[in-house]
C-alpha cells in the first residue's frame, strides 16, 4: 500500500478494529434482543423495539450527542464505567460503541426475520427430545438462523465501517484513537485539494466492505445449503 500515508493506514486499521469489535460485541446482544422480540411477549416489548430502532431514526449527530451525554466522562453511565476501568470517551472503544449502536437496529432486524422464519414445530421437536429451551436454541434455532446472523453481522460490519456522524460527535476525530476511515474522509473533504486523498480512502472502504460482503455471501450460501440441505 505504497500509496497510503501512515496516517491513512492507521485510520484503516482503526476502522477495521472498531468495526470488528463493534460487530462482535453487539452480536450476542443482537441475537438475544432479536429472539426476545421474535418469540416472547412481555410488557415493554414495543418499548424495547423502539429503543433498538432509535439510532436508525435519529440523525447520527443526535445519537452521537446523546452518547456523549450518557457515556461521556461526566455522563451518568460514563462516570461509573470509568471507575471500573471502562472508558469510552475519546477512545477507540467509544468509536466501537458508537458504531455498534448505529449498526444494532440493522443487525437485530436481520436476525429477527430469520428467527421468525424458523418453524416452531422443529423447536418443539427438540424439546420433546429432552433439550431445554436454551439447548433447543443452541442446537436448533441458532444453526438454522446462521444465514440471518451472518447477513446481520455483515450488514452491521458494513454499517460500522461507514459510520461517521455519531462517532465524530461522540469521540471526535483523533488520529490513532478515533479517526476511522469515514472521519478521515470527512476531514479531507473539509479542505481544498483533499479530494484525492478522500477518494483513495473511499475506495479502500469499498474494497473492504465488498470483500466482507462477498465472503458473507459465500459463507451464507454454504450455511444455507447445509441448513436447507438441498
Amino acid at each position, binding site marked *: 500500500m505504497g500509496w497510503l500515508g501512515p496516517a491513512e493506514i492507521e485510520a484503516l486499521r482503526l476502522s477495521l478494529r472498531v468495526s470488528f469489535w463493534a460487530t462482535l460485541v453487539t452480536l450476542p446482544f443482537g441475537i438475544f434482543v432479536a429472539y426476545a422480540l421474535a418469540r416472547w411477549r412481555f410488557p415493554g416489548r414495543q418499548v424495547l423495539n423502539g429503543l433498538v430502532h432509535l439510532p436508525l431514526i435519529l440523525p447520527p449527530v443526535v445519537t452521537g450527542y446523546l452518547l*456523549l451525554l450518557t457515556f461521556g*466522562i461526566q455522563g451518568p453511565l460514563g462516570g461509573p464505567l470509568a471507575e471500573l476501568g471502562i472508558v469510552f470517551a*475519546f477512545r477507540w472503544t467509544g468509536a466501537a460503541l458508537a458504531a455498534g449502536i448505529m449498526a444494532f437496529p440493522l443487525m437485530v432486524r436481520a436476525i429477527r426475520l430469520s428467527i421468525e422464519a424458523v418453524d416452531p414445530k422443529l423447536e418443539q421437536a427438540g424439546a420433546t427430545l429432552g433439550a431445554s429451551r436454551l439447548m433447543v436454541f443452541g442446537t436448533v434455532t441458532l444453526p438454522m438462523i446462521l444465514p440471518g446472523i451472518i447477513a446481520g453481522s455483515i450488514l452491521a460490519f458494513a454499517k460500522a465501517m461507514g459510520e461517521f456522524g455519531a462517532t465524530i*460527535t461522540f469521540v471526535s476525530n483523533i*488520529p490513532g484513537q478515533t479517526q476511522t476511515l469515514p472521519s478521515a474522509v470527512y*476531514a479531507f473533504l*473539509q479542505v481544498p485539494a483533499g479530494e484525492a486523498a478522500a477518494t483513495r480512502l473511499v475506495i479502500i472502504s469499498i474494497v473492504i466492505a465488498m470483500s466482507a460482503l462477498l465472503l458473507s455471501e459465500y459463507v451464507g450460501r454454504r450455511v444455507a445449503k447445509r441448513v436447507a440441505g438441498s
Partner: protein
Amino acid sequence: AAASLKTALDEIAAGYEDTTRHEVTISYAASSVLARQIQAGAPADLIISANEDWMDVLQGEDLIEVASRVDLLGNGLVLIGAQDTEPTEIAVGLDLITRLNGGYLAMALVDAVPAGIYGKAALQNLGLWNDVEGQIAQTDNVRAALALVATGAAPLGIVYRSDAIAEDRVGVIGTIPEKFHPAIIYPAALTISSGPEALSFLTYLQGDEAQAEFLRQGFSLPEG
C-alpha cells in the same frame, strides 16, 4: 481544531514536531462538535474554533483559559461562480438575481454554520438578502456549498476565500469587502486542563513560520 484548518495545521504541526520533538494530536471536526466535546470533558489542551460564539460559550462556562484566548486567524468571503465567469466588484446593487438566472446561490447553513452566518450578514448589508432569500441552497458546511458550484448544480456560491482559491473548477467573481460582514475570526484558546506543551504550540502557531503557511492556504491574519 475546525475542520477547515486541516491542510494548514497538518503542515504546521509537522514542522512543530520536527523542531520540538513534541507530538501533536489534532482532531478535526465541526466547531459545534468540538465545543460540545469540551463541555463533556474531552481531554483537549487547545481548541481552535471557526466560530466565536462557541468560544464565548466555552468561556462562559470557564472551560478555557481566558488569558490564552487569541484571535488566531481571519478569513474572507468570496462570491464564486463557474470557472470562466467574469470577475466583478462586489458592492451594493450587485445584480445577483440576474446572475443566478433562476438558479440557486450555494452557501453554508445561514443560521447555523459560521460561513453561512457571515454570508447572510454580508447579503443583508449588501441589501440583497430579501431578494435572494428564497433562492439559497444551504449546505451543512462550506465545502459542500463549494461542491455545488464546482459540479455546476448551483451557478453561484458564497464561500471562504481559503476554500475557493484551491478549487480549479470554480472562479472567484469577487471578494466580498470586509466591511459588509463581521470580522471572520478563528479564535484559539487553551483549555483549563491544558499542559505546558499546549502553550508552546499555541505560541508556535502565532510565529512567522506558521503564519506564512496560513497565508499560503488563503487565510488572513487578524487585524492587530
